[in-house]
């Protein structure tokens, strides 16, 4: 396999982590290649699922970009903003009042999932249901936030592991 092939098959986490080729950390990552591959598959499952339900691909990318920004990971923000641009859902469109309320509830919940998941209670889920968010979409939203917060932590961890001697 040529080095070009290796580069082009690198997963998003590996691309963004800036690991020095041939380093001990690069070797450790190659030992965990299947974990990196499944992390990429998880990214695709939450960002561009075949069955997006009530969370469009554009909304998912916009939420992911917001979560990355809330964690000060600007390279990841840029990635999700590029994903958002690719969906074509970038024009402001007028929303009906029920749809505006549904999106507002999703946004509030996404912020809680990212910033203070320990404070979650049954009331948060009741609020989503009352705002018209379907139960399947509540699970989809949790998976999206959970994945992005996992990805943010893997990247933050790799960043400090990179510098240890």
């Amino acid at each position, binding site marked *: 396999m040529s080095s070009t092939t290796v580069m082009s098959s690198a997963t998003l986490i590996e691309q963004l982590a800036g690991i020095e080729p041939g380093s001990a950390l690069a070797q450790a990552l190659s030992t*965990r290649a299947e974990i990196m591959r499944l992390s990429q598959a998880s990214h695709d*499952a939450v960002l561009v699922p075949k069955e997006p339900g009530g969370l469009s691909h554009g909304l998912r990318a916009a939420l992911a970009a917001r979560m990355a920004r809330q*964690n000060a990971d600007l390279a990841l923000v840029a990635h999700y903003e590029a994903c958002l641009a690719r969906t074509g859902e970038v024009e402001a469109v007028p929303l009906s009042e029920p749809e505006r309320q549904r999106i507002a509830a999703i946004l509030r919940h996404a912020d809680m999932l990212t910033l203070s998941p320990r404070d979650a209670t049954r009331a948060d889920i009741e609020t989503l249901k009352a705002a018209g968010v379907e139960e399947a979409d509540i699970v989809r939203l949790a998976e999206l936030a959970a994945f992005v917060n996992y990805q943010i932590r*893997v990247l933050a961890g790799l960043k400090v592991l990179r510098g240890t001697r």
Partner: protein
Amino acid sequence: MSNVVHAFTSTVPVWSPYVTPVDLASATPEQMAAMQVTPSNKGVSKYVLTLAHDPESLAVRSPLFNLIMYGKDGLSSAERELGAVGASVVNRCIYCAAVHASRFNGLTKRPEVIEAIFKDELEAKIAPREQAIFDFSARLSTTPSQLVQDDADALRKAGLDELEMLDLVLSSAIFGWANRLMHTLGEPLEP
């Protein structure tokens, strides 16, 4: 009706969802595949039935979780469980903390480590190598952007090699995921 568990414990509670789980009898073929339901395996937990609302995520997350927690070489199983406990304490996921504390206890036969953590949480004082692992996991789980070089250097000083450090990042991070499902989509009840 059972009581909700609010304090950390190594007795595993019963998880009860806030949303209606998928009904196994009316699950789609894709949901059945994601839940790994086979003729010989029909025991599906409420947690898995709840996550089956999003079969595409569930289908990839299960093997990812298993590889991170139970894959060979690298960080010991007990120390991966300690990473899971660190994240679960930060995110106050009582259910995840209980499951992984009980696994840690089963592997190490040293319940005093978990007792110290459940008593003093992030202020807990434990043996040096386990302290470095627990503290790193807690720091990564709280505010990842505030992680600094000293945090990783502390792992190196405690004797972890590259693969062990990577496994700790992964086992802590995957609980940034698991806690956000388990703790936000349901609650732990007394068994």
